[in-house]
């Protein structure tokens, strides 16, 4: 039984390996890829083929597999590559070596694509053309673009052509929606490093097990990323307020008077001295 299982696995593995090679050669014919990058992809491929379970999954979702290959092809800026290496070095753990949902990240993010109402975009955009004007009038008109001080528009981050299921880097590379931080990190690279390392953003689930962090867009609306002021939760009731409330006295929670700012105070002092 075991032997036969192994044999079948080997056969499937070989087929998959061949398939992957074909995919890569196709890609190679499409893009000009640096040699170093090529080496890396082949390394990852061999790693992939090593674990048979993953391969079976891969087989089931052939489309996804293709996506992955394309993602691998995202050429990273040399500066960012350094950050990625750093992140990997910091976060890579032996126990987590199998968890590779994202290509570059040794951590998991809750998948984003499933959350989108309109995803995959190509379902509609197969037929519908992209409106050439900057003003959105027919669809998506609820979107308010308040990002980048009017220097951006839709096609800064989205493709106009057939690649609409992906985000578009400034170099026109395809970026998966589940890896949107690569897009944000083009400008917000320092924030991105913080996020990758754990000083920004939010880890969910467990502090001890596999690291799962929320993508930028979970908290920031990418079209209007600034978080708006809102009313806080109720003011804590001090002992005074509780007493007044219980004795049915009218009361107002005491708020301190406006304080004079440090710089104003100092400025005032100098101003007074000078007018003397």
């Amino acid at each position: 039984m075991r032997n036969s299982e192994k044999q079948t696995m080997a056969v499937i593995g070989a087929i998959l390996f061949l398939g992957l090679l074909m995919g890569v050669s196709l890609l190679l014919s499409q893009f000009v890829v640096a040699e170093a990058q090529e080496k890396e992809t082949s390394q990852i491929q061999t790693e992939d083929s090593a674990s048979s379970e993953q391969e079976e999954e891969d087989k089931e979702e052939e489309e996804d597999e293709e996506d992955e290959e394309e993602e691998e092809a995202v050429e990273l800026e040399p500066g960012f590559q350094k950050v990625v290496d750093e992140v990997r070095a910091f976060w890579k753990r032996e126990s987590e070596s199998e968890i590779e949902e994202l290509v570059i990240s040794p951590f998991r993010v809750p998948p984003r694509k499933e959350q989108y109402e309109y995803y995959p975009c190509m379902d509609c955009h197969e037929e519908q053309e992209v409106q050439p004007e900057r003003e959105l009038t027919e669809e998506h008109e609820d979107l308010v673009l308040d990002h980048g001080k009017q220097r951006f528009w839709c096609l800064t981050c989205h493709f106009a052509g057939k690649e609409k299921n992906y985000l578009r880097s400034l170099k026109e590379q395809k970026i998966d929606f589940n890896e949107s931080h690569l897009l944000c990190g083009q400008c917000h690279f320092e924030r991105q490093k913080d996020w990758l390392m754990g000083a920004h953003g939010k880890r969910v689930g467990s502090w001890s097990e596999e690291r799962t962090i929320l993508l930028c867009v979970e908290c920031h609306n990418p079209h209007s990323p600034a978080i708006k002021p809102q009313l806080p939760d109720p003011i804590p009731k001090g002992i005074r307020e509780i007493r007044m409330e219980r004795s049915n006295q009218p009361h107002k929670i005491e708020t301190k008077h406006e304080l004079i700012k440090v710089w104003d105070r100092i400025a005032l002092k100098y101003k007074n001295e000078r007018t003397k």
Partner: protein
Amino acid sequence: MRLINFFWDVGLSVFRGGKLYFALLTVFGLVALLGFFSYIKQYQLGIMGHGLGEEVSWGVYIANFTFLVGVAAAAVMLVIPAYIFNIKRIKEVVLLGEVMALTACIMCVLFILVSLGRPERLWHILPFLGKLNLPTSMLAWDVIVINSYLILNLLIPLYMLYIKYCGEEPNFKIYFPATLVSILFAISIHTVTAFLFSSNVSRPFWNTAILGPRFLASAFTSGPAILIIAFQMIRAKSTYWIDDGVIKILALITTVALQINMFLLAVELFTEFYRQTDHGASAQYLFFGLDGHNQLVPWIWTAIALNTIALLILSVHKLRESPRFLNTACVLTVFGIWIEKGMGLVIPGLIPSPLGDIVEYTPSIYEIGVSVGIWSIGGMIFLVLAKIVIGVEKGRIKYIPR
């Protein structure tokens, strides 16, 4: 058998007395009852029954406790001349002083008890059964020293009274070491209580080395002053004569201690106000008010005024020697110290809170009721004990072989 006789006779003497004695006992008893009901009511009402809260969680109870520790410690000012230097006229009243210390100790324990959230769990601090947090907790040390001092002040007078009752001479080998230990404990209850406050880095107002000396100085001011008042009353209302010399010595002690106390206060204030750091916020609140909160300001200035007047009276020899002025000065300084060291020390230490919130504290009527109740219990205990002491000293209670 003599011991049983002693207790029997002493017990009987408590129930024999003049009209004033019973009238006082009744008044004290009624007020104590009022205090008891206040405590019950306070328990039922919870937050509404307390003036305390999350920010100010120590109030009048601890303030009175602090003051009374001082009174308890002050007995040592009679004990030292009486037992160590063998001054006869002081020896005649030293038992009264020790009884005062005992009363003050009992009141201290009561004030701590009523401020506990779970008084029924008190067995948690008993030796062997509980877990006293030694040596790090200052409160644990305070429990030890105050209770030891209480027991010493119970046993030493008991022994001396018993010996007098039997008409014998006290055994030097028994009372002298016990007295020495009690002197040590008298100093230590006050120092430990000062450490109880000054060990808190979170409360800059208390976190100062001068607090210990200040505590001792104020203790030796208020304690003898209370003794003078008590002695004057005893002189006026009973047939027991207390020598003028005793009062003079006590008055001198009060004077010197008050002078030192005022000096230390001035030193403290200099440090607080020279550079008004965050550490000065509590002092600022106490003396001048902070951000429009100034509830304690009149109190502390009253205390300072009282102490200053008392200081002036006491420092002038002629005035100090006149009984009327002396008594006034003693009453003034007792109130002055009671405010300065009680409310004026405990409460501003907690304002502003460690996070800079200013919540003021006004004692609830129940807290005041309980405090007054405990003071009357103290009064009752002192009255009864003083009666016993006087009875034995005067030879009214003595052993008659049957």
